[in-house]
């Protein structure tokens, strides 16, 4: 007998469809049991799900629906806390109380999603190297793979806590991807990680700014042939600045990196303006 799930389930009804008997089942009564316990990176092909149906629980038959009490995660957690007084709650799984690996999203023991780690930066979150010259394809692949694992739609029926964790992790991953995808934002973020904040920073370099002013005026008023020439020059400059920036970050020369980041910001802005004008 096959089991079918409906959005508005009625209790234990039988459906005859083309001679096959179908039983409707309340999804609340079903839980998944995972046979293979493996780390999350090998999910996908090795995952086996068996659906088990609980015995009839009379609490589900009640006419008025009780709202399930949400479990709070502020309870003291684990065996490790008794053994070590400086244990932090992040290190223990909230469900099976097993010790967690650093920067993991799921517990190795019970595969439950864990609360987001606020100490990890965007590079660690997306699982890429901390370099300026990232491979954008690798970045987007890892972003997509992670979202397949943690998207809130997957945790809708798993209870309030897990759904909340998945929402927070998902937004963090989205934010990290948006920042690391663009060159100027990535450079600014890397500077911030090393203590050079760019908030409210005013630039006073008259040569650079006059040049940018004239170029932008040209974009507003100039002909298309001139603009295409300007675009080629701009792209060349961008390639050069990116090389210089990678070198500066590798050598940890953050002052030089700051200057190059400023130039990159203006190059990117000009590029956007040219793109709007030409297309």
């Amino acid at each position, binding site marked *: 007998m096959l089991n079918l799930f409906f959005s508005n389930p009625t209790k234990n009804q039988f459906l005859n469809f083309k001679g096959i008997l179908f039983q409707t089942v309340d999804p609340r009564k079903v839980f998944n049991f995972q046979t293979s316990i493996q780390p999350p990176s090998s999910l996908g092909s090795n995952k086996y799900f068996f659906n088990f149906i609980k015995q009839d629980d009379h609490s589900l038959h009640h006419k008025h629906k009780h709202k399930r009490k949400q479990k709070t995660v502020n309870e003291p957690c684990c065996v490790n806390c008794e053994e070590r007084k400086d244990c932090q709650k992040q290190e223990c799984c909230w469900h099976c109380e097993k010790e967690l690996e650093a920067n993991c999203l799921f517990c190795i023991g019970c595969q439950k999603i864990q609360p987001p780690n606020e100490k990890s930066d965007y590079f660690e979150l997306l699982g890429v190297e901390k370099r300026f010259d990232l491979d954008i394809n690798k970045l987007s692949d890892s972003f997509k793979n992670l979202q397949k694992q943690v998207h809130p739609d997957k945790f809708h029926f798993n209870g309030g806590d897990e759904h909340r964790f998945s929402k927070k992790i998902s937004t963090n991953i989205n934010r990290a991807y948006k920042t690391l995808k663009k060159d*100027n934002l990535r450079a*600014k973020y890397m500077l911030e990680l090393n203590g050079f904040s*760019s*908030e*409210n*920073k*005013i*630039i*006073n*370099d*008259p040569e*650079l*700014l*006059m040049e*940018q*002013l004239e170029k*932008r005026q040209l974009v507003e008023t100039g002909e298309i042939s001139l603009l295409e020439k300007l675009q080629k020059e701009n792209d060349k400059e961008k390639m050069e600045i990116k090389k210089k920036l990678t070198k500066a970050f590798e050598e940890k020369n953050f002052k030089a990196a700051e200057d190059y*980041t*400023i130039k990159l*910001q*203006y190059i*990117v*802005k000009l590029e956007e303006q040219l793109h709007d004008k030409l297309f």
Partner: protein
Amino acid sequence: MISLIFKTSTQLFSPKLVTQTLIKRFYDEKVIDHFENPRNVGSMDKKKKSVGSGIVGSLACGDVMRLDIDVDDEGVIKKALFKTFGCGSAIASSSLVTEMVKGKSINEAMEITNSEIAVELSLPPVKMHCSMLAQDAVRSAICNWKEKNPDHFCVCGGDEQNKN
């Protein structure tokens, strides 16, 4: 506002009305006014001795702001012109600053703060850097003028004593 909504259906669905109501929700009226009718746009001849020219940029958004001031012999700003490439709030801030600075002495103009500009235009927190930019543009223009006229005024206090 409510009376506008209950007009005839042709007027109700006109694009101008829709954009007006939408804009009112997101931008202050003064910002829209300064953006659509900017005051004192242009630039002055930098080679003149009475002209101070300041140019500043912000790293947050990649905007450029240029402010030129024309100062008379008594140290009072006669005229100010601006040129800005940036968002609506940046253009409005610089346009407002050119109006605020007219008729003030050098000392008074140095004391204009970004919070005055932000309060006047009701800038949201995301756009506070635009008012910072305008404040720094004024100060940069004044410093440029000071370099050209070093023996004219002492900005840090005794302006009456050092007057030539």
